[in-house]
């Protein structure tokens, strides 16, 4: 059996899966320290199902904590932004074009150094050791602990970044350093942005990984634990410690994959309604449709591969205007259970509309809600209108598609949406995220330096793809489901002409160990 856990801003969800069967699930509140919320959820599903701890093969975690940290500008460390590449790029320093508030969170410390290489491998400028020394002294004086290093053309030649990283480490061994060549491809600003966000999360990621680890050990779970990343594959926990930014879109990915698993539908529109937003995504062939365009995270441009998600400001805790004619984007969030009318509070929220309409029964916690009939009618209509408009924007064509509702706020939808062929709100839809985490895929990535002079390109791509497939299968992917998810080529500037860094990623479903267990 496997355990899937999703730690969101409001709820911590957990599921216990035997193969594809849900043995137990729980939706618990996320706690301030995260760890005790995870422990609570684990405790519930283990005792509820009666499954022994030693039967658990793996724990898969999905978490939006790192995304939320960036979006809400919390838990971000100040970062020294070191860019190697002067005299080029002077006009566009690090963090140019960032929203002022998040730039301020990172402290605005930037250091631009002479150095780096050109596209052809020749030096852009010589590294200026006086500048490096001055930078190191200043970083020390400011007491900065996290550093992001970028250099022009570093995906083609990582040496300048590595050289400066080594000098920084020699001077201050405890520094947390992210180099941009590890974060992405050509496109200096986006790659540098990704490195900066990652570096600003390193301290937090250390704490999160530790607290997850402790929570599991505390419950006597010694099996491996993984954290899901943007493309729906798993990373081991130590990797996440270094690359928290790779989890940015794992939340939507997991909820889409979970929705597909719960309904058996491969092509559908998925609406994940939470406390603050409704995230609309498209399933194609069982996988989230990816966005082609540059992705902003918390207003910062990055070049991560991410699912194409439209977030609209409508959730269970969204504030409803007096007339009912507008809802959100402000929300009471996790305070819904104290501030909503239906919970005895004084704020009219989207959830209260459903209670007033008699479409939602909160059980013993709930209180009746009385609303002016016109306000109620307007409010319900506003919910339908907002979702219809959102879905319309995301539709791949004018042909109706099934709509799958997941998330804690799925109850908000009472009628069929205009562009839906059918509406699905499957059992366990409230914990689709955790199910998505539990069925996350295994990836296999292979990077090779190849020479297209010696091996024709087509042959080289085929060879490295085969290796990537084999790596994924060796890591536990089911051979029948393995497909190539990404191919990336970067010309290597310092090598002979025709040298290319070829990186291929293959992914596949986890092989079920049911037979052996």
């Amino acid at each position, binding site marked *: 059996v496997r355990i899937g856990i999703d730690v969101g801003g409001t709820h911590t969800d957990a599921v216990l899966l035997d193969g594809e069967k849900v043995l137990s699930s729980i939706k618990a509140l996320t706690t301030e320290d995260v760890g005790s919320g995870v422990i609570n959820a684990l405790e519930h599903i283990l005792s509820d199902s009666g499954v022994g701890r030693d039967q658990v093969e793996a724990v898969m975690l999905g978490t939006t904590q790192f995304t939320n940290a960036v979006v809400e500008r919390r838990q971000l460390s100040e970062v020294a932004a070191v860019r190697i*590449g002067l*005299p*080029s*790029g*002077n*006009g*566009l320093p690090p963090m*140019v*074009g960032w929203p002022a508030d998040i730039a301020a969170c990172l402290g605005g410390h930037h250091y631009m150094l002479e150095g780096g290489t*050109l*596209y*052809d491998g020749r030096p*852009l*400028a010589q590294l200026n050791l006086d500048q490096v020394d001055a930078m190191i002294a200043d970083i020390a004086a400011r007491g900065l602990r996290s550093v992001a290093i970028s250099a*022009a*053309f570093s995906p083609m030649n990582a040496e300048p970044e590595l050289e400066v990283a080594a000098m920084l480490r020699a001077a201050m061994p405890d520094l947390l350093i992210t180099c941009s060549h590890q974060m992405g491809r*050509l*496109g*200096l*600003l986006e790659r540098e942005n990704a490195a900066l966000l990652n570096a600003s999360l390193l301290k937090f990621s250390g704490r999160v990984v530790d607290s997850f680890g402790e929570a599991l050990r505390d419950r006597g779970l010694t099996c491996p634990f993984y954290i899901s990343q943007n493309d729906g594959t798993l990373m081991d926990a130590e990797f996440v410690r270094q690359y928290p930014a790779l989890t940015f879109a794992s939340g939507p990915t997991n909820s889409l994959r979970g929705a597909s698993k719960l309904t058996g539908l491969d092509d559908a529109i998925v609406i994940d309604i939470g406390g603050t937003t409704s995230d609309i995504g498209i399933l194609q062939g069982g996988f989230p*449709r*990816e*966005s*082609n*365009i*540059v992705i902003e995270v918390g207003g910062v*441009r990055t070049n991560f591969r991410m699912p*194409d998600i439209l977030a609209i400001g409508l959730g269970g805790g969204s504030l409803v205007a007096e007339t009912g004619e507008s809802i959100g984007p402000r929300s009471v969030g996790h305070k819904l259970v104290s501030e909503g009318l239906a919970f005895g509070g004084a704020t009219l929220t989207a959830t209260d509309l459903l209670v007033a309409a008699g479409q939602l029964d909160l059980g013993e916690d709930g209180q009746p809600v009385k609303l002016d009939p016109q306000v109620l009618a307007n409010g319900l209509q506003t919910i339908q209108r907002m979702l219809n408009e959102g879905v319309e*924007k*995301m539709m*791949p*064509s*004018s042909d109706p598609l099934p709509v799958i509702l997941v998330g804690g706020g799925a109850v908000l939808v009472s009628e069929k949406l205009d562009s839906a062929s059918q509406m699905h709100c499957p059992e366990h839809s409230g914990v689709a995220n955790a199910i998505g985490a539990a069925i996350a895929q295994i990836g296999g990535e292979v990077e090779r330096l190849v020479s297209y002079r010696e091996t024709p*390109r087509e042959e080289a*791509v085929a060879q490295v793809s085969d290796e990537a497939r084999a790596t994924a299968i060796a890591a536990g992917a089911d051979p029948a489901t393995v497909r190539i*998810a*990404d*191919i*990336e*080529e970067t*010309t290597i500037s310092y090598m002979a002409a025709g040298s*290319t860094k070829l990186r291929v990623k293959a992914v596949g479903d986890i092989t079920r160990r049911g037979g052996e267990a």
Partner: protein
Amino acid sequence: MKKLGSESLADLSAGAVFLATGGGGDPHVAQLVTQQALEEYGPVDLIAPEELDDDAYVVALGGVGAPTVSLELLPSIDEAVNTLRAFEEHVGRKVDAVVSFEIGGGNSLIPIVAAAVMGIPVVDGDGMGRALPEAQMMTYPISGVLPTPAVTTDYRGAVTEFDTTDIMEFEKEIRQCALSSGGMITSAEHPMSGRQLKAAIVPHTVSFSIELGKILRMYRGNAHRIFDHLAALFAKSIYGDIHHLYTGKVIDCSTRIIGGYDIGEASIAPFTGGDELLKVNIKNEYLVASIGERVLATVPDLITIVDYETSTPINAERLRFGQRVTVFGVGCPPFYRTQRALKFVAPQCFGFAMDYRPIETLSAADPPPIA
């Protein structure tokens, strides 16, 4: 005379990437620099060619090199301004207005940066109506404007002067200069009088690009949603009609920096599988689109690849495996269909063994459904 301020920049830039047919350089970094310039120095005057004095002294300004380089060697206000100043010093006179080489991509914005800082107008028009990889392909030299005196600056600020009056020799020299200076330089070239400019320019393309960007923003969505709006806009422009050439998924894309250009090709497959692959040949720009032996469109007509979901145009240096895309073709401005222009921009000029045939004779007979 119109004013061009930072509020139009996003639309101009989006329209410019559409017209860039894959090339022209990354517009995002150019947009950031232009934003800085317009915020610091205020809006620029956008002067229509017909408003320009016949005796005005105008110079064309822009980047030359491999677009991939623009993703890493970031442009700056100084590069555009210093190039113009170095040019003025070289010729010993003030420039009255600047004009773009090519409306496509980041090169549509570089003259605006210089114009903002120097307090001179930028001309509403350009020398290509799109983007093309080489100097002799511009309408300016084809119409008889001499390429020099010209100056370039590189990322270090090093100035190089050019004096040859032979356009092919000029292209060779300036390309060599770009190659040996990090792959991208800024050039001020093709100085001309207002009278010469009026006869040589593709007019009003800056305004058109802003209109196009506005359509892309307002009707953001897939080809179903946007096609009719785009068709209506192109129908009343100096361009020919827009055609839907293909929709599918990028299954292979490879370009390399060779001889100062991004060179390679992309293959796009139908969503539903099948072997009717669309092949797009790239030399900085998307040059030829074909399915097997059947050619759908060739340079100088425009081939543009957009994100399938949003119709956001995608530059060749950002085209990647797995992207879902729609491919559009647009008839080029009539200037490029004349015999004297085709001598420089027909498919043969790029090494393809085929004559130019207008897109409407290739595609219109058999338009594919929009996915």
